[in-house]
């Protein structure tokens, strides 16, 4: 594929002396550029399609493996990974849906994630409350952000509410002083103040918050736990 952005100088200069040829040159050039743009757009769609299919492949592999495994700890591990892949898959399902490929709609994403997580958990005794402002983040931040939300939600579900103990999970997203404030709170059993070293999930959250230059704070919600993540709007901190 030729790189069409190189100007064709010699022919232009030679023929530009005759005004009627000038127009023909512009027309031909415009046609070339339009075709090139169409080719690149088609390629972009193809890549997007491949990414979505490949994410599906990864999910399927994990699901198939999980079916064969009987050890509960191993199954739990695989499910955890599946949840993370799903979070990334949810990002890609929504990325490029709007006309603006640079921005990612956080509230729409959270609704998808919540529906999926709550649906698979099938806990009728856990209620979820959403208070989501329409917030957009750069597409590059979408996957790390999605992984953070996935870990925090999964944590609330799994650790806050052991079998038999129901309650409520709140997810709130709003702008606050040049930051995006994401809050995930539950009224469950709360966390152990005598902290053991953070599990893999919380380590992921810490690392990704570093990457996103976001601050995260966990407090006792009495009862339950509250995590607030402050994500800078313009990437600076």
């Amino acid at each position, binding site marked *: 594929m030729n790189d069409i952005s190189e100007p064709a100088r010699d022919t232009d200069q030679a023929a530009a002396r005759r005004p009627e040829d000038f127009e023909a040159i512009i027309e031909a050039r415009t046609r070339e550029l339009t075709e090139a743009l169409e080719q690149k757009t088609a390629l972009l769609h193809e890549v997007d399609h491949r990414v979505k*299919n490949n994410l*599906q*492949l990864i*999910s399927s592999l994990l*699901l198939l493996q999980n079916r064969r495994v009987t050890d509960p700890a191993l199954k739990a591990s695989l499910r955890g990974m599946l949840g993370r892949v799903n979070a990334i898959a949810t990002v890609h399902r929504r990325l490029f849906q709007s006309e603006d490929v640079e921005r990612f709609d956080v509230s729409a994403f959270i*609704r998808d994630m919540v529906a999926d997580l709550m649906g*698979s958990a099938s806990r009728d005794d856990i209620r979820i409350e959403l208070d989501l402002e329409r917030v957009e983040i750069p597409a590059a931040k979408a996957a790390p952000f999605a992984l953070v939300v996935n870990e925090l939600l999964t944590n609330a579900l799994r650790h806050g509410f052991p079998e038999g103990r129901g309650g409520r999970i709140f997810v709130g997203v709003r702008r606050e002083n040049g930051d995006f404030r994401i809050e995930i709170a539950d009224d469950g059993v709360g966390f152990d103040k005598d902290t053991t070293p953070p599990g893999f999930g919380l380590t992921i959250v810490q690392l990704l918050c570093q990457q996103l230059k976001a601050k995260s704070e966990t407090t006792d919600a009495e009862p339950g736990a509250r995590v607030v993540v402050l994500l800078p709007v313009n990437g600076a901190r």
Partner: protein
Amino acid sequence: MTGRALDVLIVEDEMLLAIELEHLIEEVGCHSLGCAMSSDEAVDLAEKLHPDLALVDVHLSDGPTGVEVARKISSDCGGVALFMTANVKRLPDDYAGACGVIGKPYSEHGVRTALSYLAYCLQEGHAPGPVPVGLTLAPAYAQLWGLGNLPRIA
């Protein structure tokens, strides 16, 4: 699920996805008729086996032929097609006669609930409730199953 188990045909050229779908189909109480990887194979199997439901990817081993497959299955084979594709926006407005689409990448939970929902709709002739997340119904089917006029959501 009431009544006889639904016969479902899988039209998908990625083997791993197809096998996983077979598991999900059986888990919701339907019956898998097998998998077709090309449009010819799909139409052939549909004509022979008369699936109630066909899960159809748009991109098959012989190219983007899934839309035509869906059209043939609904018009000639008496079955209902459901698209499972990453290219939701490229589907024709009439969904080529299919009842709807599940966008890729889909979640296990999403497919399970969609299959149960559609099994109910196909057997009872109306929807049990609002459309589950992850499934988009074709306007014609939304109407048919008593859900009124739905805007098309990607």
